[in-house]
């Protein structure tokens, strides 16, 4: 690897793509004529929502898959003919890290060292270096299956780095890993690029894209953009604004603003709104009719703003679903969802420890936390899927333990993974859920008809749910969850991995429903989703370590070193504080 002759001939581009096409079965093309290049010695982002073709492209780069047409050159080798030469010089970490869960950390390293032909005399030095680098030194005897998500990810990385690769391919290394581990991984990868390793990092998180040296932005198998992320964000420079001081309902205000002709995108950020205009306003032009008392200030453009702009802007601010919903008076201020000392123990492990909060009608409450922190456990206790060991959960006044059926009839549940019947058609799924919720025949017809209209299901009515594109699956899941007009809506990581347009459409519906008096509980580790919440409980190691509005949480960590923290900064700082507190 320290071969001087070969590094002299090293091509400037580690990957070259020339009109690469790939189709699976009779579906739409997974990759539809991708051409581009990835320069050496940098972190290149392969960015796009789920189903955009990222994994296919990474696999093509490893030589494990062949394109239908077009050519790929990786490290100067042709991926179709010289796959073995590529595999000698790359490190590859597939989505689930490629570890053997029933082998220990050390045994996994040994296996990959043998497979990669690491010379025995340098082995112990290499292991030592990698274990120090990944902070796994004290866990060498532990089975990989017993490591946390973040530690597995680091071990996967260590295995991919054994024979220092010239190119490191990471397929969605950030999925299922908390933000702290993600940041650590990023720092490690940056160190590698300084040593001359080129990195391809595939991700659905657009904030990760921003930090890359260059990106290939994919959407539905098409290459939307190739270049430095800054070039893309420059396209929306001067068009991004932050509106603060909105009084009387940020959700309603956002809905109105999104309906305007000159606004192409808008999201809620804590108590403020963030909007993107179609054109940069002329200097000195009067700021058009803002809500009373609100002020508008330019904001830093983000990668996501530019992505939405490229896709032609987000959907409008009107939700037909919300307009058709029966209004419940949101002013009564009654508590719809309530957690009182909720505790769940599995054996001697406390998954959730004394969780308390209450959600008034017409609010969005978020459970935020790393994987395995206990947010799903809490969530499941509140929708009656798990019996609490101690404490009480109530929905719409009903005790979930005693009146489970009544409580469940008043809540709608949307699971994280696609949980509809894939082999049933769209219409059959709607009918089925209408039936499950016990709607009368007349009402059932009425509601399914309405859902088909609102979500434009008519053209795909007869399609199997599993064959729908991701965005439509998302819509169908929402339609099934709100079929019976629930008072409370439970959303489990509802928009992770979906494209930003679908995510905005989804939140437009949710915001509209909340305005009509629906109460929402959402679990997420996605910071953008957290911003939509009225209040958030940060769950860590089974405990609620912070509770407040997004702005309050951000304010609580604001200091000299962090004048304007993001939600993710706040998240990380609060967890670090909690760690420091428990070890002190």
């Amino acid at each position, binding site marked *: 690897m320290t071969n001087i002759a070969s590094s002299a001939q090293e091509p400037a581009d580690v990957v070259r793509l020339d009109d690469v096409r790939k189709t*699976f079965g009779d579906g739409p093309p997974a990759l539809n004529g991708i051409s581009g290049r990835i320069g050496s010695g940098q972190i290149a982002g392969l960015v796009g929502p789920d189903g955009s073709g990222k994994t296919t492209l990474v*696999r093509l780069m*490893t*030589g*494990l*898959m*062949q394109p239908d047409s077009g050519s790929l050159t990786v490290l100067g080798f042709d991926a179709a003919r010289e*796959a*073995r030469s590529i*595999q*000698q010089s*790359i490190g*590859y*970490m*597939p*989505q*689930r*890290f*490629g*570890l*053997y*869960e*029933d*082998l220990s950390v050390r*045994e996994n390293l*040994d*296996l*990959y060292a*043998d*497979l*990669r*032909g690491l010379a025995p005399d340098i082995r112990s030095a290499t292991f030592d270096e990698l274990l120090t680098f990944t902070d796994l030194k004290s866990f060498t005897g532990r089975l990989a299956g017993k490591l946390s998500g973040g530690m597995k990810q680091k071990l996967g990385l260590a*295995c991919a780095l054994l024979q220092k690769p010239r190119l490191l*391919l990471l397929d969605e290394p950030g999925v299922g890993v908390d933000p702290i581990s993600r940041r650590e991984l990023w720092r490690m990868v940056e160190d590698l690029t300084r040593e001359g390793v080129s990195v391809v990092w595939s991700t659905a998180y657009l904030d990760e894209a921003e930090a890359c040296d260059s990106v290939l932005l994919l959407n539905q198998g098409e290459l939307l953009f190739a270049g430095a992320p800054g070039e893309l964000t420059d396209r929306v420079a001067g068009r991004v604004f932050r509106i603060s001081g909105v009084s009387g309902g940020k959700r309603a205000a956002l809905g109105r603003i999104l309906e305007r002709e000159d606004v192409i995108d808008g999201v809620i950020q804590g108590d403020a709104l963030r909007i993107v205009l179609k054109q940069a306003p002329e200097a000195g032009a009067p700021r058009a009719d803002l809500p009373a008392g609100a002020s508008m200030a330019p904001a830093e453009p983000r990668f996501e703003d530019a992505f939405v702009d490229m896709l032609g802007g987000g959907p409008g601010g009107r939700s037909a679903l919300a307009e058709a919903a029966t209004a419940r008076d949101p002013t009564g201020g009654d508590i719809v969802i309530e957690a009182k000392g909720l505790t769940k123990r599995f054996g001697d492990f406390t998954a959730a420890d004394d969780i308390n909060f209450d959600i008034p009608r017409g609010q969005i409450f978020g459970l935020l936390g790393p994987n395995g922190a206990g947010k799903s456990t809490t969530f499941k206790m509140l929708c009656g899927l798990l019996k609490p060991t101690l404490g009480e959960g109530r929905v719409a006044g009903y005790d979930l333990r005693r009146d489970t059926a009544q409580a469940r009839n008043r809540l709608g549940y949307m699971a994280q993974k696609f949980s509809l019947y894939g082999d049933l058609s769209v219409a059959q799924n709607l009918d089925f859920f209408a039936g499950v919720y016990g709607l009368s025949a007349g009402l059932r017809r009425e509601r399914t008809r309405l859902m088909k209209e609102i979500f434009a299901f008519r053209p795909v009515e007869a399609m199997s749910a599993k064959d729908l594109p991701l965005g439509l699956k998302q819509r169908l899941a929402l339609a099934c969850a709100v079929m019976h007009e629930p008072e409370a809506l439970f959303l489990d990581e509802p928009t992770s991995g979906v494209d930003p347009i679908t995510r905005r459409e989804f939140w437009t519906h949710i915001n509209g429903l909340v305005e009509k008096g629906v109460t929402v509980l959402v679990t997420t580790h996605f910071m953008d989703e957290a911003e939509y919440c009225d209040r958030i409980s940060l769950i860590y190691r089974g405990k609620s370590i912070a509770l407040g509005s997004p702005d309050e949480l951000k304010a609580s960590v604001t200091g000299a070193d962090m004048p304007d923290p993001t939600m993710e900064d706040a998240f990380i700082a609060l967890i670090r504080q909690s760690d420091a507190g428990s070890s002190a």
Partner: protein
Amino acid sequence: MSEATRPQASSSVRRLAALVRKETYQLLRDPSSMLIAFVLPLVLLFLFGYGVSLDTTRVRIGLVVEEQTPLTQDLGFSFKASRYFEVVSGQDRRQFEKALVDGDIRGILVVPAVFASDFAAGSEAQIQVIVDGTDPNTANFVQNYAQGVVASWRAIRSAETATAGRGIEVEQRFWFNPELTSRYFLVPGSIAIIMTLVGTLLTSLVIAREWERGTMEAMMATPVTSLELLAGKILPYFVLGLTSMTLCVLVAVFLFGIPFRGSIVALYVLAATFLVPALGQGLLISAATKNQFLASQLALMSAFLPAFLLSGFLFEINSMPTIIQWVTLIVPARYFIPSLQTLFLAGDIWPMFARAVAVMLAIGALFFVLAARSTRKRIE
């Protein structure tokens, strides 16, 4: 040998050793593998050793003697003395109808009122056998043995009365398994079934699991070749299959007292050969499905059940429809089971073994070629 190829050869050995070591650790740590390789075989073996027996003994029947005469009483005693029947006596066939329907008894034998007079007159004296046709095996059994009892009774009777017996007496001798104990051929046969479980089911499961967990993908992105990957899987399961077989043979010989008249060399030659098609089939299944559930279903349908039903283990191949007989030709167990039975009960019959070995190797080669073709280092 050039400078360039030598280090490659040694690194290939090292990769293979690493894969075998990995597989061995996994095997030893995974309780479900141990279950399939050792516990399940023992359960099956005990089932065939103790539980299942194709010799039906002591069937409960109802005996109706319509007219009590010394002659009919004598016939009745013959039935009661038979080791095959447990006899409940009655006066009228109607009183047994319910018991037959309920399955309390398996048949009704009626000695009609005219029996004695017919017999005395030297004409065809008949008895009636009523059987439960829902279980044809037992029904046949009752019918045949009842006939047997009557026949021998008649023979004794004629001898006693010194009436010249005109029938030709057939005396049967069974070689190698004189008592015709079904356990003697069921237990050796079940060893083949067990090796199918380890060779095909377990192998296809563990490879499908690698696909499911994404480790196969990570393996393939290393310099490892597909030949090394396949060999790394096969070697440990080959050894495991032979270990499992050894355990079974020990149990068969020392616990069940099955005679072992052949040689140990022949046993291992046959078993090792049988593992070739078994492992090949496991590889082929996992390469085709890449999914544990499908792999297990396919392994059960295409390997386990044929080994059970189409190998001559339970059902005589000669009595199968011709087209099924053709199908049995590609069931490796069909060649292995008779060889094993011969090995245990008769001894080394090398001409027979050689033929079985040749055919099993041929079937195995076919599976391996197909498996290697579908396990190229590709993900699709």
